[in-house]
């Protein structure tokens, strides 16, 4: 697949000397959903703002659809839609007028049929003549998406689209994103909700302190880095791990009622069979057992901690 967005050695230092981005390189493929995951202040918004033209890079370049965002800003920006993190809307204007304004701003001729279709998809059509101040928070967020889509962009940036949004609405938003992907729109979203990245992204990039620490196919990342845990519930609680089991680096669960064994799924041997045999030999009686896969969250926390 070809890249629709190329970020090349992008660096951004603010006037006070703070380096928000440290030579970031990133290739975004056409049609994918890329989630940029990072803690607050990691540089997610700065990265998006710089790609979209709101912030001027200190050095480096961004190419969108073959257009340099600095030298050829019109070509590049025509391809980009941006949904900002904050709900920034003119409160006294109607939904339709606001969306129409956005389309015009991008130099596209008026096309109300197209805009009404967007509003329908976002369940906003019956509110098209309402003033924005009359809408709920969730609806306002969807108005921002409608504005970003009004000029038919090929790349959509969603900066924390579900920050402060209730669970139901978050699921709605995920459906909207899935529909957009089906329409062929490339989507880059930032989030600090790991479950969000896990639920909708094709690839996940982890960003911390202005650097991309890792960027990988989500499934691959989880498979490669994912650790699994085997939890053995004991019939009789233990106080300490028997010496015979020392080689397994087991942890004792709450109140000694279980033993936890962490193993690597990509390892040649998981060691489960021998562990179970050794448990029996040590005279421990099993009541139950379960395995659990570590989530993106564990990977994320692990990586960010390492660089801290």
């Amino acid at each position, binding site marked *: 697949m070809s890249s629709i967005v190329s970020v090349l050695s992008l660096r951004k230092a603010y006037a006070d000397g703070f380096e928000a981005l440290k030579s970031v390189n990133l290739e975004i493929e056409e049609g994918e959903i890329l989630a940029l995951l990072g803690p607050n202040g990691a540089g997610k918004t700065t990265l998006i703002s710089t790609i*979209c033209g*709101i912030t001027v890079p200190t050095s480096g370049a961004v190419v969108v659809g073959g257009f340099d965002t600095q030298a050829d*800003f019109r070509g590049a920006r025509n391809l980009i839609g941006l949904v900002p993190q*904050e709900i*920034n809307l003119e409160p006294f204007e109607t939904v339709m007028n606001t969306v129409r*304004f956005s389309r*015009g*701003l*991008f*130099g596209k001729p008026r096309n109300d049929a197209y805009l009404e279709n967007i509003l329908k998809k976002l369940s906003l059509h019956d509110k098209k003549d309402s003033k924005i101040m009359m809408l709920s928070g969730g609806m306002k967020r969807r108005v921002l998406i409608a504005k970003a889509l009004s000029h038919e962009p090929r790349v959509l940036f969603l900066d924390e689209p579900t920050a402060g949004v209730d669970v139901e609405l978050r699921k709605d938003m995920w459906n909207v994103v899935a529909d957009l992907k089906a329409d062929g729109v490339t989507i880059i979203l930032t989030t600090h909700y790991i479950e969000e990245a896990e639920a909708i992204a094709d690839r996940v990039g982890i960003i911390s302190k202005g650097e991309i620490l890792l960027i990988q196919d989500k499934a691959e990342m989880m498979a490669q880095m994912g650790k699994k845990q085997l939890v053995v519930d004991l019939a009789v609680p233990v106080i300490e791990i028997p010496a015979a089991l020392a080689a397994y680096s087991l942890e004792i669960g709450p109140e000694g009622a279980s033993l936890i064994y962490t193993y690597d799924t990509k390892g040649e041997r998981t060691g489960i069979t021998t562990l179970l045999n050794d448990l029996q030999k040590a005279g421990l009686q099993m009541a139950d057992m379960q395995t659990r896969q570590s989530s993106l969250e564990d990977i994320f926390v692990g990586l960010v901690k390492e660089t801290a």
Partner: protein
Amino acid sequence: MNFTAVASIYRFEMARFFRTITQSLVSPVLSTSLYFVVFGTAIGSRIQEVEGISYGAFIVPGLIMLSVMTQATSNASFGIYFPKFMGTIYELLSAPVNFLEITLGYVGAAATKSLFIGIIILITAFFFVDITIAHPFAMIAFLVLTCISFSLLGFIIGIWAGNFEQLQLIPLLIITPLVFLGGSFYSVTMLPPVWQTITMFNPVVYLISGFRWSFFGTADVSIGLSLAAIAFFTGACLVAIWWIFRTGWRIRQ
């Protein structure tokens, strides 16, 4: 050139004006009427004539200028400050538009609004005093140029302002005194010589003088000087705006 974008910004800004049409138009009409009642009738009846013109008619160009300058400045500064305040400016900065297009949209709308108000005040004036316009085309040209140049100034103030107080600061502390002391209600020749010299440093004098010339054919300063002053003022504002967008001052980090 992205003309669709210019038209979009212009329409969006004008929509704000028409949404609040009553307060946009009623307040200037009311305040002008009050000026006519107080200065034109109550005080003016004792002044008789200034430079051969009845005082009521003499203050018409100054009154229009006073309103147009303050309205153009406040409309344009609010027009660009509001998106900054609301955060909606992100859209302008990420759209395929350059500084000229943004300026044309916002300043064009602000200039149109103030032009409307200027014309309404002129019409209101006809109800109070007898006036004839000696050079109607020059009058319109001066009016339009003033609307544009003060809208440009307002646009700069709106970009500069970091809060609502600052937004009011320059119009209140600089523009209003300059306009009042620029001969809106009197002829510069009525002042003592020292003050006449000092007054000549007030750029507004040239604008009001030129505008008054277009009504009555007489002026405090030569018409060429008036034109040069307004051209210089417009040019200076344009250069400032070009610099602002080139450096991203106060808008693009």
